């Protein structure tokens, strides 16, 4: 679905004459391969290059070196630009700054309109995508009156209506309250499971990635760790060094382990921790 080879990108600072004054490497020789239908998470603290990487998938940024393929299409090919953007939709961080329409359904229709989809089909898609994110009853509302989480779900519906095979969510929950955060992540998971859409979730909240199929951890533009959540979260010390917060249950299990309580590595949820502790207790 998505493949990157030696992907590199520099942010250039230009002086007044337009010459390159300094360069900051944001993505540094990244190689990755994402299979269709997976739920992928990209973790990293601020400035680790994860958002820059995300913008490459949607061909908003072009690699300075290396290549990125979306469904076999090289993002550097001019002619493929719109097919790539249709194939790989993108949801951004700020819910206000990505809603174009003044009524929910008009916003969802914006993408298909741009693609030149016939009118009847647009309406069908709008209904279908609003239904998929559970926002159908707000279709005539003004986006200004929705909560942050609802706005993000509308934004997801807006991408869905373009029938992408992959949705990149670039820190969609960073500006939301816990409730909104949960609803957005739930929606993303549901789309992944039920519609088979590849989800690439960029975030720095560890709790959100517990159920991902595969995690990439980025630091200073490089992928420093990858694997399933269990493997990643068993490396607590390393994650701490990368300034990432481990889920509380994992952290507690890790500390208990250090004190000599025989718990397995990579406990992810409260329930799991409780289960394990109860098992231990019954053995005693």
């Amino acid at each position: 679905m998505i493949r990157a080879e030696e992907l590199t990108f520099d942010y250039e600072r230009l002086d007044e004459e337009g010459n390159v004054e300094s360069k900051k490497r944001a993505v540094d020789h990244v190689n990755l391969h994402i299979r269709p239908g997976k739920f992928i998470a990209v973790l990293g603290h601020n400035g680790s290059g994860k958002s820059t990487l995300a913008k490459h998938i949607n061909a908003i940024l072009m690699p300075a070196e290396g290549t990125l393929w979306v469904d076999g299409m090289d993002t550097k090919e001019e002619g493929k630009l719109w097919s790539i953007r249709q194939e790989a939709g993108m949801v951004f961080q700020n819910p206000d700054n990505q809603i174009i329409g003044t009524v929910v359904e008009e916003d969802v229709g914006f993408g298909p309109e741009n693609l030149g989809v016939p009118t009847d089909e647009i309406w069908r898609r709008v209904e279908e995508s609003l239904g998929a994110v559970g926002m159908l009853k707000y279709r005539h509302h003004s986006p200004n009156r929705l909560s942050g989480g609802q706005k993000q779900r509308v934004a997801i519906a807006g991408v869905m209506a373009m029938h992408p095979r992959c949705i990149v969510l670039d820190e969609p929950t960073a500006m939301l309250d816990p409730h909104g955060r949960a609803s957005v992540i739930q929606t993303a998971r549901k789309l992944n499971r039920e519609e088979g859409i590849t989800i690439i979730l960029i975030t720095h909240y560890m709790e959100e990635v517990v159920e991902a199929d595969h995690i990439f951890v980025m630091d200073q533009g490089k992928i420093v760790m990858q694997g399933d959540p269990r493997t990643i979260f068993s490396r607590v010390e390393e994650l701490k060094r990368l300034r990432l917060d481990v889920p509380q249950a994992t952290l507690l299990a890790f500390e208990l382990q250090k004190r000599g309580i025989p718990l397995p590595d990579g406990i992810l949820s409260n329930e799991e921790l409780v289960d394990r502790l109860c098992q231990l207790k019954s053995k005693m």
Partner: protein
Amino acid sequence: MLRDITLGQYYPAKSIIHQLDPRVKLVTTMIFIISLFVAKGITGYAVATLFLVMAVRMSRVPFKYITKGLKAVFMILMITVVFNLFLMDGEIELWRFGFLRITDKGVRTAGFMALRLIYLIIGSSIMTLTTTPNDLTDGLERLLSPLKRIHVPVHEIAMMMSIALRFIPILLEETDKIMKAQMARGADFESGNLIRKARAMVPLLVPLFISAFRRANDLAMAMEARCYHGGEGRTKMKPLHYESRDKTAYAVVWGYFLLVTAITWFQRQYGVMLL
């Protein structure tokens, strides 16, 4: 204070006016504005008032909501009234103090001018309150589409307008927020003379502009990410076509305009000035 500007805010409701084709509403607003400048005297304005009252009633937008928009232009209104009141030269002097004098003609002109401005704002508010900006843009785009032939970027203009309208409430909210944040740090927007007040606006406007640019950047990216590439090859979710009610509305509006013009013409022709 800033939240009171209703211009450009859609008021969702189900009414005949809401359902009208945006082109009808745009043309109607234009005709209504022109009619306000054509109309002379009480009869003309009575007809305009009748028309406006009818439109307000049919729009099902609470009258209070519409008049909120007036507060924002209250100052301009007052200035116009004061100037007209004192500077118009008439025959019958009503009041005099030094070089200031109010004449009958001054009162008349000031009154009509105030009425004209108020009607103008209410009229255009009804249009923006009952039409979603997207519809408005579509209507404008279609109305202006002949200009494409002379290379006027009609679609782009229409898009810019609709985005501006969408961001008005967001930026107002932001202004409010920045104002409070600066007030919490001891900024004073209320006291002092005009120059000091103007200077106090700087710490308000600078962050507002920065944030507006940031938003514009984000929005442009979001639009591109959703395959926006100008008007070419774009389909419409809500394509415009005239229904029978739109034709009726056109008939009513033109009827109204003819009536106002006829009244004015009649008054001028026969000198029958009913005031």
